[in-house]
């Protein structure tokens, strides 16, 4: 590693005001939304052009210095945590929508474009960008691509990878590649799909071609209250099995309901142990007919109460409660850990019962607000880091929930990625050979392992937990951990 030479060369090519070196300038880049980890880079490059990104990557490769590409830093798995004494390539200023073609239904964007800005730009054409991570007001497409981000509406139209058609990227050794293109179809290996979700280990996406969808003609939304979390979980299995294909199916538990009510007065029934939100979307005639069927399925699942959104304002209120629930719950506790495991949908009731049992056993409150339709749990483990032993108990509880997901045939992460946080759980999900092959693929693109070093793969070096509490952006209500 030749850090001195690298910094010297960077000074030649990046204007001083965009090459941050002083600790005070770099503080905002030391952490992401997984605030438990913190690391100080040697420099932060505020790139404004693709050429600057390419040049920085090439210099890092030449001098064997690790780099981390970063968007808005909303990763919940520590995916954009800097490498100590490495370089951070900040991409927020690379935020142009290069092309929006309504005929072809695509948008070509730079990595720093904010997720919601794509839908905003597409709206005049009756189109939108489907993946909707709850940080979509601030998170960037580049970060979404790196972590194959999800959202509440993955059930029908999938995650980020399903919506990325082409990528121009700089590989960690400086080679520029064009993967895929503007067509929905491709021949040869799906390299675009392979790149998405590689957690920054395959380099930096410079231009991303996104698929846009027409906005549905009609949404119909129902809110059902249940006496137990398990009953709500069983209701999800019934809806899935009924042959209906909702756009979203979400569950909140009592703690989440209470917090959401206190925060935004969504009008949720307060005595319920669990709430289920189901939404259908599509052509008006079809949705109306399906919705009647959905209500029958819900009624048969033994709910306490059923509320149907009467109009757009009603629907917005229901979703506001849901989307604010996470940050609202977070305010109930000084610290919390959030997990992102997935279980088969038919095992949802069982998984929720296990989480309740584990919560009691570890004497820690756990709130649940999650994407039920695709079995993606988001248990939120509340603790106080200042009470000796509570952090350790919270982590033990989190570990048991992750193991439960694997035992039930699921995954350690549905949409947050492995990052720094869950890398030690990879061997529980994959064999030594699986991981060896993935590591070889990585080294084929990055022999020096300079791109986002320390993420995804289990490592001997234990990162230190340095701080707890909400992220500054979280305090401002700009991001939430779900």
């Amino acid at each position, binding site marked *: 590693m030749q850090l001195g030479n690298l910094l010297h060369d960077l000074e030649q090519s990046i204007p001083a005001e965009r090459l941050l070196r002083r600790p005070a300038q770099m503080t905002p880049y030391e952490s992401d939304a997984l605030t438990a980890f913190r690391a100080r880079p040697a420099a932060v490059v505020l790139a404004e052009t693709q050429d600057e990104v390419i040049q920085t990557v090439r210099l890092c490769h030449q001098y064997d210095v690790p780099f981390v590409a970063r968007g808005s830093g909303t990763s919940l798995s520590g995916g954009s945590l800097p490498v100590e004494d490495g370089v951070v390539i900040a991409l927020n200023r690379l935020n142009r929508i290069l092309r929006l073609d309504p*005929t*072809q*239904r695509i948008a070509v964007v730079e990595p720093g474009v904010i997720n919601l800005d794509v839908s905003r730009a597409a709206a005049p054409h009756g189109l939108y960008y489907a993946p909707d991570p709850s940080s979509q007001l601030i998170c960037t497409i580049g970060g979404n691509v790196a972590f194959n981000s999800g959202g509440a509406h*993955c059930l029908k139209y*999938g*995650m980020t*990878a*399903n919506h990325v058609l082409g990528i121009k990227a700089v*590989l960690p050794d400086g080679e520029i*590649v*064009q*993967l895929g*293109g*503007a*067509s*929905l*179809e*491709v*021949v*040869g*290996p*799906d*390299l675009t*799909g*392979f790149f998405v*979700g*590689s957690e920054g280990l395959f380099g930096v996406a410079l231009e991303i071609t996104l698929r846009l969808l027409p*906005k549905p003609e009609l949404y119909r939304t129902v809110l059902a209250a249940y006496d137990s979390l398990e009953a709500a979980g069983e209701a999800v299995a019934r809806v*899935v*099995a009924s042959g*209906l*294909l909702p756009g979203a199916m979400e569950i909140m538990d009592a703690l989440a309901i209470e917090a959401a009510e206190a925060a935004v007065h969504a009008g949720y029934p307060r005595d319920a142990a669990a709430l289920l939100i189901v939404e259908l979307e599509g*052509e008006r005639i*079809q949705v109306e*007919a*399906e919705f009647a069927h959905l209500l029958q399925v819900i009624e048969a699942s033994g709910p306490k109460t059923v509320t149907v959104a009467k109009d757009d304002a009603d629907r917005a209120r229901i979703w506001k409660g849901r989307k604010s629930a996470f940050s609202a719950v977070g305010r109930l506790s000084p610290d919390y850990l959030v997990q992102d495991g*997935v*279980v*088969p949908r*038919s095992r949802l009731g069982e998984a929720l019962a296990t989480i309740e049992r584990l919560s009691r056993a570890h004497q820690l409150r756990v709130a649940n607000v999650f994407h039920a339709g*695709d*079995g*993606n749990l988001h248990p939120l483990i509340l603790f106080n880091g200042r009470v000796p032993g509570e952090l350790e108990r919270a982590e033990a509880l989190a570990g048991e929930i992750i193991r439960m997901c694997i035992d039930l*045939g699921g995954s350690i*992460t*549905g*949409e947050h*990625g*492995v990052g720094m946080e869950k890398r030690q759980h990879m061997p529980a999900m*994959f064999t030594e*050979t*699986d991981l060896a*092959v*993935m590591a*070889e*693929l*990585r080294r*084929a*693109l990055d022999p020096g392992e300079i791109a986002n070093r320390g993420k*995804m793969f289990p490592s001997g070096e234990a990162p230190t937990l340095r701080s707890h509490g909400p992220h500054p952006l979280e305090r401002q209500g700009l991001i939430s951990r779900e």
Partner: protein
Amino acid sequence: MSATTTIAPANLEEVQTAICAHERLVVRGGGTKPALSTTDDGATVLATHRLTGIVEYTPGEFVFTARAGTPLQEIAATLAEHGQYLPFDPPLVAAGATLGGTIAAGLSGSGRQRYGGVRDFLIGVRFVDGQGRLVRGGGKVVKNAAGFDLPRLFVGSIGRLGVVVEASFKVFPQPSQYATVRAPQLTLDDALATIARLNRSTFDLEAVDLLIEDGAPVLYIRQGGLATTLAARQQSLLTWLGGGAPLADEAAFWADANAFAWVPADCTLVKTPLTLHTIPVLEQVLHAHGAQRRYFGGGAAVWIAWTGELDTLDAFLTTLQLSGLILRGAAPWPFIGARPGATLAARVKRVLDPTNRFPTL
């Protein structure tokens, strides 16, 4: 050409042994896309027809896992018993195409219009690479962000990175009824404008194909859903189109499309991904050479039945920066035209198949 040897392993251990024992191998599923498993002299064919069966299927889960050699027909029939289907509409079902062959070829059919292609439904894969290693990527749940996306890497890899032995897919409930509109268009420009309008409309469409019938463009637009609302939805589509008529025996029409019944026996069948903007130029070339063709997926791709010199088509596609995959017909290598990402593919190949046991990718 000398006679080729065929080996047919019956389980994954036998696949591993077979791979280690043969220096040069070509993988073959149902053989319905023969250009993808053409052998040159000396290579052994690894056939997957003994690697069959659905391993796991819980209908309420809308996910199944099956061995690679399982015929699509068997899978489709099992899913249909529970009102489910493969939404990406893999071609050549009746002809005997297999699940593994469909992944390897990366093929989706006209039905991809509604929810996406094979890449959007494959969630997990187990394969044996060129070094005989059994590797798993993805999983058996519909949402999963752990590890590199090896399942997608294998979509379209035509058996040249390894042998898929088992795959998991998510599936959807199948529409209980279908209806199709046939809408002749005056000119190609009219047809493309209509497709563009359809693609941006709020109609939920199962398929949008463009055919050239006696030199004139004709659109076939398929809808699906609840039987109780389908007639009203079709009427609404016809009104919106301002023309066209319901197609009688629409099921047979789409079954023929799936079987490539329109493709003459002696021509080269090529798949080419497209955008609507590239169709007019390509259409001139195809028309001038008398090639039959069928556009599908709302203009996302075209099947070309080419009868001329392959080099000619290769040159045209290269000029237009389009790619082609040869499914049938004599071809030394199944790719023609542009190859975006070829260097990355080559790097991946060196990891999974360093001794080039499988043909060049």
